[in-house]
């Protein structure tokens, strides 16, 4: 009896909070027919927003992956002063509000910022243009790969790497042939989480973008824009595109999640 009540409570809670709202947005998006929904996600602005989002993911994810693997190697394999500090610094983006991240980037790379003036003199505008948005995306999605790779690296130990080195492999060979294959699932899981975060970032990007429709508007900003313009179908349709991407990521998460955690 008690078990059934618990199960029902859990399922009802999740249903009311997660499943129903998300399902209802799908209904709302397609309530005027598939054609209308399709039209509103294929306006030039929406298409531009979609490709801009893809572009940001395409830049931020590889860079953060590279950084993540390197940083995890340093954190696990090297002993140095301030290692705990570095580890804490990597986690910072989790504790900082996206709005604060956006503000921080403006203060450094904006027109009156620490580096912004110099960059502007050299013809590089960061804030209110795409580079700033890429920076914001990189900032918010920074920790994921590191966090996923660190425990895996710790677990595999160094014996195999040492064996490879004794047999005459160069450090690069050792990394490519021994370490990388061992950590590939951790990396993959981290990449999926990074992608999800990069796709969906709103707050930080919203502050640094200037929100110029058709220029610096990502898909998430487009959702807000359509909503504020009372184009509900447009907002719901764009939201559904993002939700479908989210569900795809969810499937990938389940695929890559380390077995002991399921």
């Amino acid at each position, binding site marked *: 009896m008690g078990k059934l009540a*618990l199960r029902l409570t*859990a399922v009802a809670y999740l249903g009311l909070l997660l499943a129903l709202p998300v399902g209802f947005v799908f209904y709302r998006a397609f309530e005027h027919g598939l054609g209308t929904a399709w039209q509103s996600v294929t306006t030039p602005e929406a298409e531009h927003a979609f490709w801009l989002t893809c572009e940001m993911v395409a830049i931020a994810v590889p860079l953060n992956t590279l950084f993540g693997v390197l940083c995890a190697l340093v954190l696990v394999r090297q002993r140095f002063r301030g290692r705990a500090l570095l580890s804490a610094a990597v986690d910072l983006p989790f504790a900082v509000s996206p709005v604060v991240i956006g503000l921080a*980037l403006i203060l450094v790379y904006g027109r009156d910022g620490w580096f912004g003036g110099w960059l502007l003199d050299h013809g590089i505008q960061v804030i209110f243009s795409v580079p700033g948005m890429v920076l914001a995306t990189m900032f918010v999605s920074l920790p994921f790969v590191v966090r996923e790779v660190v425990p895996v690296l710790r677990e595999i130990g160094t014996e195999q790497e040492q064996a490879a080195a004794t047999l005459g492999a160069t450090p690069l060979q050792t990394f490519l042939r021994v370490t990388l294959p061992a950590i590939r699932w951790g990396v993959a899981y981290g990449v999926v989480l990074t992608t999800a975060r990069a796709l969906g970032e709103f707050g930080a990007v919203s502050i640094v973008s200037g929100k110029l429709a058709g220029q610096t508007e990502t898909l998430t900003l487009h959702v807000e824009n359509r909503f504020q313009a009372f184009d509900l179908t447009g907002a719901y349709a764009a939201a559904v595109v993002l*939700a479908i991407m*989210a569900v795809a990521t969810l499937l990938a998460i389940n695929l890559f999640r380390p077995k002991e*955690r399921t």
Partner: protein
Amino acid sequence: MLYLSLIALIPLAAVLVRSTDGGLGGFWDAVSTPQAVAALRLTIIASFVVVAINAVFGTLIAWVLVRDEFPGKGIVNSLIDLPFALPTIVAGLTLLALYGPNGPVGLSLAFTRASVGLALLFVTLPFVVRAVQPVLLELDREMEEAAESLGAARATVFRRIVLPSLRPAILAGSALGFARAVGEFGSLVLLTGNIPFKTQAASVFIFSQVESDDVTGAAAVSVVLLAVSLVVLLVMGWASSRSA
């Protein structure tokens, strides 16, 4: 490490520096305006309430997912990660569609304080569940069985045997959820209406200050927000490792 500095550390340092542009007095003036105080208070109280609800429901959900078997459990389990995968602005929009003014349920939570809590509950749901689940899986059931055979009631077994071993995980998950709730922005924008003194959360307040070019004030409130979430992370992390 240059990468980390350029992207994260230097900008955050800039926020700190900028927040004291007008001296300490200026900092205090910026964070003690009635609107700033109201926004900070709302955010902190709402975050604590949400964390408490999450601790209860998160543990309950984790329990059901580990100890119960029912058809569709796999789907429910993967549904938990949805708030991590779903963009926050979409989360806000979905809640608004269902619980908003023209929603089918006929009750409108939008633009009320409850909507702040609702949005925060949505985005922080996975933290406690995902922290408790692995611990519950590892938990040895022998002690529970022993207690039960000695005549302990189910509630007693849970309170005296299960809960103590889950406590570190619940605290750790709650700390992460709290940090997330304090900074949350995207899901609040559409749902809460951002009415100053009523539903305007701290992150939204900072956003509006940046828009109106009061960068120093925004930086000051940011520093307070940052300090709150760091302190809570530290305290709960300490409590969690102490009860482990």
